[in-house]
């Protein structure tokens, strides 16, 4: 009572949250009241609420404490108070992961789930499933089956959803509940039907044929629940995506049919599914778009929002398809809801013609101040894509963007604008000057150090190559005077780049840098000293290597190499060439998250930095004692499939190149559940000069557990002989085993399995490297070991095709954005940069010209070693 009163007082004072000042120890102390007899339901309910609140606030409760509280809580089962009991169910669910021996409440929950009190049954099922593990599942199986087909909707739904959760750990058991789930699908409650379909799909989702049948069956038989329909649409669209089926497949017909469903949610889901499909033509999209068009004039704001948001997405891929809706979208510009209005305008910007751009821009600027940052970012992105589409309009856009840069806004918003400006500058050379000028103005008053350093870096790279580089110097030097250390350091670097690139500015830059020598920050001072000394040498090669094109090693790799070096003191100086190179491009790698039907609608793109992939391999290989003395890992190739994906054994190969060796890593998976493979290794038939040194077999390959075997190959001594083809055979000992237990028989027999050939190509010996200033590097390497040749590429039809093929063949990094061929030109120059095995810089300039007869190419290769140039030249022929 006392506690209650005190809480009440606090509530009055604090206003709002009565649980604001809870402390874990006192609450757990209070939980002892659960042990009292007779039980005081009100007091216990209050305390239990506090415990639940704490857990949900992320408070960490130790195992012993949790177990004690849990056991005290189990005593509350003697009270029949409904509120308290339902809180206990919640408590069990929350504590099931932290307390020990939670299994103790099994029987009590079983009693409740089969009891007469309907209110208890559903929650009891959910709680029971959260404490049950694999071993206990057998004993509740019968009750679960009964509950799934129960007359009461809440019970049935609870059982179905719980089964779905259970199947994550114990798929085998829930599989047996298929008949019950089947029966529940024909239930006339919308929720039960939806959940039952969900479970049914989940049980069968690994069997593509069964899923196809499932969709076929339920798309004919009319379901009552709109939610079930939505799920069916998601399953169908996933199937279409996996199979790459076209619009003639029955799945597609089904989805199209759903556009005429009477429920809005189903119609929208179907339209959304069609829009998200990878390969659809504008014509196939037409029905979906016309449905969305109808939604645009719906009185419900949610529908309008959904429709315009989806149309916005369509506009990215098929602007033409959305043009039909332009009139409806125009009406939405003045919508009460600003989010709808913004999306409508940005969609129009994507679909509209060049002439309407000015009008729309004016319209949008009228309410830019009223919308949230999130939508402002949408606008920025729309402008960016517009700018790329209509390069001639860049001056309008740039002005608009710079206007936005001056306005108030959060970091994300400013970052989006800066990103856009940078992209536009890179794509459209005409916009460069204006863009740089706007960015210069922005950094004059920029509170985000990250953005300022980024812009300074860009200025350092692009500024010196503009017609009048001197005008940027003032902006950069202002940073040195006014900003914090990080920005000052970036500004110093940018200044040095101007000095290194433009001879007429060299002296002034040195003067400015000399002033930085007295800076208070170590980093700034160090950089300035370094640059001043380098610039004073006045050597082009030095400038290129140390100022214009900085370090090209992987940062993680460098850290590890230095750490290793400090652990083992040696007389030799640290060799930069042993550090693995950064694989380019880092920013372009995006991994698409796997989309599950029934989870989220929008495919989420997760950013994943792939740069560390090679570092991961390097670490794995370093742990194998046999490979310890091979030297530093130079390059790991991307995995190559050596089998079809549906065969008995699936093998992928990754080639790791070392200074004198190649390690072939074979990732094998055994897809037969009645076999165990032992002592598996891949035997190679090498071509001339290559020599297999060692096989590292994989001791055991169980069903569905990937294993790795390595084969070590020594490269020929002859420096120009680096390519070859290897035929591979997987050799192993087979033992039959029981599919259920995985226990193998004693006896096994030897067997082999022929794989596809592996090739070692020139690209395996070259690591991609980005040279921001190709021209400087070209001069730096010099013509000493230059190889030049002319080829005629008769098989290629277009310049783009030739460029892609050359890049692939050489395995090098295109620089200066030369991988993009401007439209309507007959000649193009491709610049490639890389580092050859052993640390030799290699640069390639390939001049392409298109004529009637085909494409002619003049290939010039410069490197620091004669054989390297020859090998690279041989890659093309």
């Amino acid at each position, binding site marked *: 009572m006392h506690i209650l009163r005190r809480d009440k007082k606090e509530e009055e004072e604090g206003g709002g949250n009565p649980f604001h000042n809870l402390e874990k120890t006192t609450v757990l102390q209070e939980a002892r009241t659960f042990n009292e007899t007779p039980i005081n339901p009100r007091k216990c309910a209050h305390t239990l609420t506090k415990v639940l609140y704490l857990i949900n606030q992320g408070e960490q409760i130790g195992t012993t404490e949790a177990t004690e509280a849990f056991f005290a809580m189990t*005593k509350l089962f003697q009270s029949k108070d409904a509120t308290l009991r339902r809180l206990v169910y919640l408590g069990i669910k929350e504590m099931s992961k932290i307390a020990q021996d939670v299994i103790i409440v*099994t*029987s009590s929950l079983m009693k409740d789930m089969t009891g007469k009190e309907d209110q208890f049954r559903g929650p009891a099922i959910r709680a029971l499933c959260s404490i049950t593990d694999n071993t206990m599942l057998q004993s509740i199986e019968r009750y679960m089956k009964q509950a799934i087909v129960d007359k009461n909707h809440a019970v049935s739904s609870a059982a179905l959803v719980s089964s779905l959760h259970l199947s994550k750990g114990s798929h085998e058991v829930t599989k047996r509940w298929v008949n019950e789930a089947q029966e529940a699908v024909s239930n006339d409650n919308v929720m039960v039907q939806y959940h039952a379909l969900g479970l049914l799909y989940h049980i069968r989702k690994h069997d593509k044929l069964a899923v196809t049948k499932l969709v076929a069956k339920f798309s004919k038989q009319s379901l009552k629940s709109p939610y079930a329909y939505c799920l069916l649409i998601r399953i169908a669209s996933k199937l279409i995506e996996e199979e790459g089926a076209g619009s003639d497949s029955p799945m597609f017909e089904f989805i199209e049919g759903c556009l005429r469903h009477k429920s809005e949610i189903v119609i929208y889901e179907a339209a959304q599914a069609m829009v998200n499909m990878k390969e659809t033509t504008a014509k196939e999209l037409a029905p979906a778009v016309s449905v969305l068009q109808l939604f645009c004039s719906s009185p419900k704001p949610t529908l309008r929002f959904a429709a315009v948001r989806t149309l916005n997405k369509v506009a990215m891929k098929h602007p033409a398809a959305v043009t039909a809706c332009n009139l409806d979208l125009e009406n939405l510009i003045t919508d009460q809801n600003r989010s709808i209005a913004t999306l409508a305008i940005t969609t129009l910007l994507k679909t509209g013609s060049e002439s309407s751009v000015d009008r729309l821009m004016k319209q949008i600027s009228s309410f830019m101040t009223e919308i949230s940052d999130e939508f402002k970012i949408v606008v920025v992105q729309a402008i960016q894509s517009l700018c790329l589409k209509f390069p001639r309009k860049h001056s309008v856009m740039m002005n608009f963007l710079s206007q936005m840069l001056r306005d108030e806004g959060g970091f994300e918003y400013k970052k989006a604008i800066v990103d856009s400006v940078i992209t536009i500058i890179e794509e459209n050379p005409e916009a460069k000057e204006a863009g740089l000028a706007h960015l210069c103005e922005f950094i004059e008053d920029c509170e985000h150090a990250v953005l300022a350093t980024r812009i300074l870096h860009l200025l350092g790279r692009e500024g010196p190559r503009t017609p009048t580089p001197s005008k940027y110097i003032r902006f950069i030097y202002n940073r040195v005077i006014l900003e914090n250390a990080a920005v000052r350091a970036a500004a110093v670097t940018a200044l040095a780049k101007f000095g290194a690139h433009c001879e007429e500015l060299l002296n002034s830059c040195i003067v400015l840098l000399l002033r930085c020598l007295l800076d208070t920050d170590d980093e700034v001072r160090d950089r300035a000293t370094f640059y001043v000394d380098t610039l004073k040498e006045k050597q082009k090669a030095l400038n290129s290597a140390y100022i214009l094109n900085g370090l090209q090693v992987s940062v993680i790799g460098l850290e590890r190499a230095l750490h290793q070096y400090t652990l083992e003191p040696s007389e030799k100086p640290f060799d930069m060439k042993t550090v693995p190179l950064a694989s380019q491009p880092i920013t372009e790698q995006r991994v698409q998250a796997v989309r599950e039907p029934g989870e989220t609608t929008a495919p989420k793109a997760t950013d994943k930095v792939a740069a560390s992939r090679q570092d991961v391999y390097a670490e794995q290989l370093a742990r194998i004692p046999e490979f310890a003395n091979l030297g530093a890992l130079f390059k790991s190739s991307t995995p190559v499939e050596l089998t079809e994906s549906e065969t008995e054994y699936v093998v992928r190969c990754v080639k790791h190149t070392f200074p004198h060796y190649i390690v072939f890593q074979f990732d094998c998976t055994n897809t037969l559940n009645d076999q165990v493979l032992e002592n598996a290794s891949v035997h190679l038939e090498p071509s001339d000069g290559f020599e297999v040194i060692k096989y590292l077999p994989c001791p055991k390959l169980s069903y569905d557990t990937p294993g790795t075997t390595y084969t070590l190959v020594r490269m020929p001594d002859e420096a120009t002989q680096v390519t070859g083809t290897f035929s591979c055979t997987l050799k192993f000992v087979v033992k039959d085993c029981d599919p259920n237990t995985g226990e193998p028989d004693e006896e096994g027999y030897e067997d082999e399995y022929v794989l596809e050939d592996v090739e070692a190509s020139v690209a395996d010996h070259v690591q991609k490297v980005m040279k921001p200033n190709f021209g400087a590097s070209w001069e730096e390497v010099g013509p000493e070991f230059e190889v030049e040749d002319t080829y005629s590429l008769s098989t290629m039809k277009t310049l783009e095709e030739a460029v892609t093929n050359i890049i692939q063949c050489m395995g090098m990094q295109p620089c200066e954005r030369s991988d993009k061929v401007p439209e309507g030109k007959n000649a193009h120059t491709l610049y490639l940069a890389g580092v050859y095995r052993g640390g030799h810089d290699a640069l390639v300039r390939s001049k392409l010209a298109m004529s009637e007869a085909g494409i002619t190419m003049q290939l010039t290769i410069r490197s620091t070693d004669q054989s390297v140039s020859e090998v690279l030249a041989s890659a093309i022929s």
Partner: protein
Amino acid sequence: MGLFDGLARWLGIKKKEANVLVVGLDNSGKTTIINHFKSEEYKNHDIVPTIGFQVEKFKTKSLSFTAFDMSGQGRYRDLWQAYYRECHGVIFVIDSSDKLRIVVAKDELDALLKHPEVQRKRIPILFFANKMDLRDAVSSVKCSQLMELENIRDKAWHICASNAITGDGLDEGIQWLTDQLKDVLVKK
């Protein structure tokens, strides 16, 4: 709240409540015994092995019981002790036809008696020598010898032969427990 309860109790409208712990080896008949005392509409027709525990309530003439029916399976016996502190009495069920495992039951009983929570309290212990109807069942006297019940000095105890399926002997045992508990609860 307390005042009203006290008044009701004084007037004899509300019965006194007692917590009892029902323990014993697996398959000795604990759940079946409790099932016998439940009113007709709540009776369970098929009894399955208990996992963890169940709470049941039943009434005699003068007391209302809350029984914690514990699971007897080996892996759950450690969990009995979590419920020792709140109980007013213990019902220990022995399968008198399972001579082999009576020693195991004795071990469990010893562990129970040695537990500090049990030692410091004066709680009555009722033994049911269950499954009397089976042919190879031993008598209750023999049973108490095998369990060495005579060594229990500081607790009130009573053993009675029972058959949980027909209900023979159960009421007699509970009557004894009721009398004992009344004393304890009145003293409190």
